[in-house]
């Protein structure tokens, strides 16, 4: 392959239009060079860098050993791992349903009013009496306040003094009699 073809290939390479086969040809060309043609030095450096990196890339035996040990360890925990994702999701969904339904049941049961059941009628009677007494006591407590209404009468009693005013007025009637006698005197 002559230098002119290489330069055409390098142009294609720069435009990212070369195939992997053509890129391999370029690599081999640069690897086999004894003398670097002018202007191609950057490519030589770049291809050498890529080659050194790709040789490095395939060899990580120590990492592979670690990973194999990791997989062996995981393999022995297989039963647990088989429960992964989907199964765990279903189990948690079922657990959630159970949890919610028991909570609802318990709450509903507690919310029912306690009617107080008595097997013994006598005891029930006593209990009812106690309750009724309590009610009447609280009712009486309210009626006490009503007793103040009688004070209203005491006010009204004071009004009786008005009758004294009347007795004064009666005395004034004597003045009219005076009037009467004076006319009688004029007539005589």
């Amino acid at each position, binding site marked *: 392959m002559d230098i002119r073809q290489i330069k055409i290939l390098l142009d294609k*390479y*720069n*435009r*990212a*239009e070369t195939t*992997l086969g053509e*890129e391999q040809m370029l690599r081999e060309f640069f690897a086999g060079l004894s003398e670097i043609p*002018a*202007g191609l*030095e*950057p*490519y030589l*450096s*770049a291809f*050498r*860098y*890529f080659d*050194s*990196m*790709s040789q*490095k*890339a*395939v*060899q*990580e035996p120590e*990492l*592979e050993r*670690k*990973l*194999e040990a*990791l*997989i*062996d360890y*995981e*393999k022995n925990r297989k039963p647990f*791992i088989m429960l*992964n*994702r989907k199964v765990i999701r279903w189990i948690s969904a079922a657990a959630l349903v159970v949890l919610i339904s028991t909570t609802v049941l318990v709450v509903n049961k507690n919310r029912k009013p306690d009617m107080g059941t008595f097997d013994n009628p006598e005891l029930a009677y006593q209990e009812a009496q106690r309750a009724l007494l309590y009610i009447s006591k609280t009712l009486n407590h309210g009626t006490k306040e009503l007793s103040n209404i009688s004070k209203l009468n005491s006010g009204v009693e004071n009004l009786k003094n008005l009758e004294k005013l009347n007795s004064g007025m009666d005395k004034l009637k004597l003045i009219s009699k005076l009037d009467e006698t004076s006319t009688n005197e004029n007539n005589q």
Partner: protein
Amino acid sequence: MDAGEFKEKVIPLSGKLFHFALLLLKDHAEAEDSVQEIFLKLWKMRNELAEYNNLEAFAMRVTRNWCLDRLKAKKPRYIESYSLGYELYSEAENPLRMLENTDQMTTIRKHLQTLPEQQQTVIQLRDIDGYEYEEMAAIMGMNVNAIRVTLSRARNSIREHLIKIGNYGHPANQNSAR
């Protein structure tokens, strides 16, 4: 897929997955942790793995998504290190330092780290791992044309950078670089 088959078909991919994770995460320990997590994930879905006709491309895709999620989780540091062009991992813990003993190798690696993630990834997938365009499209969830455009940009960027900083003794090249 049983353990034997898994060890035979999936575990040998670990080297590639690890280097891909390292490229994205820039941290040796984190890349190794991620690969272990990814293999656990693959092991747990081992019964579905047979359905993928290209297991390797699928594993690479899982790795990329995993790493991008991890980067997203600690985004501030990620953005900072890109935009300021910091050295993303110290030379001391760089696992590749044994191989890259020349300045040129270091230069290319450092320059690659300044590129956007997609450009780094296409270079890794094509020029280092040798994937077909269709496989790259599957791994990256992009169409082939977009992959070609990204790859072309990345390759030109590397070349121009090498011309710019390289002492090749060809001033003409330096002038024509831009």
